[in-house]
């Protein structure tokens, strides 16, 4: 990737609550906030921090399947609903399955680089609790190739990643891998308990690893994963502003409260093909490699990462794809405590997809907001301490079964 023609920053992040089972407020029998409510909440949250709609040049919204979950398309036209001041400004909606949020970020970054905008408001949103999980599985299966849906599992994506887990068990051993899954779950929930917007914030289970060692039941679910290996069904939205140096001046936010985008990798793989090797995330590996190269850094300079742990097996394979662990050693890497909040490379410090939640179209933006907060020291109870040798943050957002990957490298704005 070419060198960035000017500096790009992200500021003013906002996360709604990740709503769904586990949150005390969640009651599917009652009317819950809808798609437009989440868009408005997140949009206004960021606008409030950047001096209002008048400072915004362009808008981008990332969403996966509102057209099915909410029977609603044409999401760009919701920006004026957030604030009348956005009426008449350009807005665009982008989709790339569960990577829709990060595609929104990339789209915003490109607007700033193209110098058509100095301030871009980016929102990611998904409201999934409009249908039961068994029907949601149909909708989410749209992230795969529809021609193979018939032969897929009832829970299509858990089925796909269960197959990955089965292959990984066979190649590298089941017991230690399942233990790593359980440790991952424990880390995720313990981190989520430190973040008031997390879906698992209210989780009180005192023995998370034992719970997560529950044997998978292929008759009712999938063969190699249990429910604790999976991110939950979530409603939520996140927003952030992507700005140039001029934009920062316009909105009156110092660089110390922003993160700078150092580089990124955005890679697509053929949706019609099954992974060549289900024990690795080859596309993720390439995207992370591209992101590091474009940023001019190496993986040992990453101080914290937000990764796409839609399933625990995805986390194990991701730490290998990111170069933190060698192939086949992801489980040991996690079990050794390296990914815990006090470990070598704290990952998913507010819980990630399994702990914080996975409102699919919002996840990429949520990852950026979390890294913004961590790198600028605004992460509240979930704040980690970064060493000066590892000043960078990395987000990896995945669409489908390792098909659309966006990896972004960040650094504190005034570093």
């Amino acid at each position, binding site marked *: 990737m070419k060198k960035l023609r000017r500096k790009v920053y992200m500021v003013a992040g906002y996360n709604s609550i990740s709503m769904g089972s586990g949150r005390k407020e969640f009651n599917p029998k009652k009317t819950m906030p809808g798609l437009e409510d989440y868009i408005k909440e997140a949009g206004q949250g960021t606008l409030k921090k950047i001096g209002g709609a008048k400072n915004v040049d362009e808008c981008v919204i990332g969403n996966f399947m509102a057209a099915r979950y909410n029977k609603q398309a044409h999401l760009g036209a919701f920006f004026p609903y957030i604030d009348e001041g956005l009426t008449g400004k350009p807005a665009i909606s982008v989709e790339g399955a569960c990577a829709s949020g990060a595609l929104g970020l990339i789209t915003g970054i490109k607007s700033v680089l193209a110098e058509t905008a100095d301030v871009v408001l980016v929102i990611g949103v998904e409201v999934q609790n409009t249908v039961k999980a*068994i*029907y949601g599985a*149909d909708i989410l299966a749209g992230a795969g190739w529809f021609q193979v*849906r*018939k032969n897929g599992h009832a829970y299509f994506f858990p089925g796909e990643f269960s197959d990955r887990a089965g292959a990984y068990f066979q190649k590298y051993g089941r017991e230690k891998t399942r233990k790593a899954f359980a440790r991952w779950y424990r880390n995720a929930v313990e981190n989520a308990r430190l973040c008031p917007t997390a879906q698992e914030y209210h989780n009180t289970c005192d023995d998370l690893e034992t719970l997560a060692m529950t044997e998978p039941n292929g*008759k009712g679910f999938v063969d190699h994963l249990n429910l604790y290996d999976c991110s939950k069904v979530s409603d939520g939205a996140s927003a952030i502003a992507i700005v140039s140096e001029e934009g920062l001046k316009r909105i009156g936010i110092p660089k110390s409260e922003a993160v700078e985008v150092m580089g990124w990798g955005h890679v697509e793989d053929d949706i019609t093909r099954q992974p060549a090797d289900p024990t690795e995330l080859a596309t993720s590996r390439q995207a992370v490699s591209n992101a590091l190269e474009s940023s001019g850094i190496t993986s040992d300079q990453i101080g914290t990462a937000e990764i796409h742990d839609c399933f625990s097996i995805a986390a194990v394979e991701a730490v290998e794809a990111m170069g933190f662990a060698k192939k086949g050693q992801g489980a040991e890497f996690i079990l050794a405590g390296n990914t815990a909040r006090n470990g070598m490379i704290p990952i998913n410090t507010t819980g990630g997809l399994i702990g914080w939640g996975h409102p699919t179209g919002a996840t990429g933006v949520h990852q950026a907001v979390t890294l913004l907060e961590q790198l600028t020291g605004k992460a509240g109870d979930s704040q980690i301490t970064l060493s000066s040798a590892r000043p960078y943050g990395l987000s990896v957002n995945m669409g489908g079964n390792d098909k659309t990957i966006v990896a972004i490298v960040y650094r504190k704005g005034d570093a």
Partner: protein
Amino acid sequence: MNYEESLQNVSVLGAAGKMGSGIVLLTAAEMADLSLKPENKGKTFVLHAIDVSDEALSGLMRYLKTQVVKVAEKKAVMLRKVYADRKDLIENSDIIDQYVFDVLHVVKPTKLLEAARDSKVIFEAIKEDPDLKISVYKKINDNNPRKPWFFTNTSSIPITWLDEKANLEGRIVGYHFYNPPAVQKLVELIKSQHTLKEVEDFGLMYAKNLKKVIVPAHDVAGFIGNGHFMRDILYAGNEVEKIKGEYTFAEAVYLLNKISQDYLIRPMGIFQLVDYVGIDVCSLIMSVMKPYMKTENIHSPMLDLLLSMDVRGGQYADGSQKDGILKYEKGKPVAVFDPGTKQYIPIAGFQEKTDKKLGAMPVVRPWKTVVNNAAKEELLTTYFKELKSLTGFGAGLTKAYALRSRDIGKKLVIDGVAFSEQDVNTVLLTGFFHAYGPINNYLN
């Protein structure tokens, strides 16, 4: 005749009732599952859902639609395999819709008893009226050339008596589902003196396929479930009478209901359970049992009094609770009926004062936190140890209640109703959702 052939033509009598509708649901799903097996392609499976009113049958079909959708959603993983050769069914929603159609397609609602003339299997869940049952059995038996098998859901009438009165020659077995049949795992199986082995075998196979727990009981009126439940009601009623001097009727009912739920760790208190089943139904069951009990009087003046004032309990068609001995708001008791004033007395008005009189009590362990707890045994042992050490009024009342429940259970074995103490406990655990069996050593 094999199992599948027997299930090709079934009738359910009293199909729109609380028990009947559950039996229709379970049976229709089982029949649809059989019809979807490759080896049964082309065979017809028919369930005649027979009841007395069009309105009730219409309600049955609405209930079935809702419930079958839930069943299909739950077994979607398996259904994808069942419909693997249907290229037009791709998404879960396509498959669930098809399964709902296939199950409902089996069910033929009708008011005509004649529809049962071709059925091999007859499930009967009509009113607990011995003469009515005999009359219906005879009508079907006299007109059905297939020598049908009768599975009666009676919870109290001796099966041998029904068998002999209707001249069924052993083609009957007591097959007592618990309410609601779609949820409760328990089925009490009661043979008459003449029950044919093929009838029993079918009943066992059907229960196995439906993942039900069969508990055999001897043919003694009330069997195990109601044998315990009715005596439990009588005991609670007697206790109300005993303490009525010191407490008002409403307070006494509240207390007995409270201790039987909160302090005996049951899913609901004894009087709430009476309301759930229906005061009229409980009274009817007692009247059926009474003539067969030589040494005890199975009869509740309290229930008679309430019924005389048209206080009946039971449930609405949507499953919500009607007011009975207790008045309910959002499913929770909020007042107690007072026969003296014919008014409901709000519990909030006397609750604090009455609770205080109980004296020292153990910390309440809500039933739902205990029943499926992996450390249940330890929890119960600790709980009852504490209860045992307490000597106040409430603790005494609770301990006496638990011991009486144990005695009732033991007597069911001594009287030859249950085959074993384990069977008694299984019935209370699976049919009444108790957290522990009544025959235990917690208070020894």
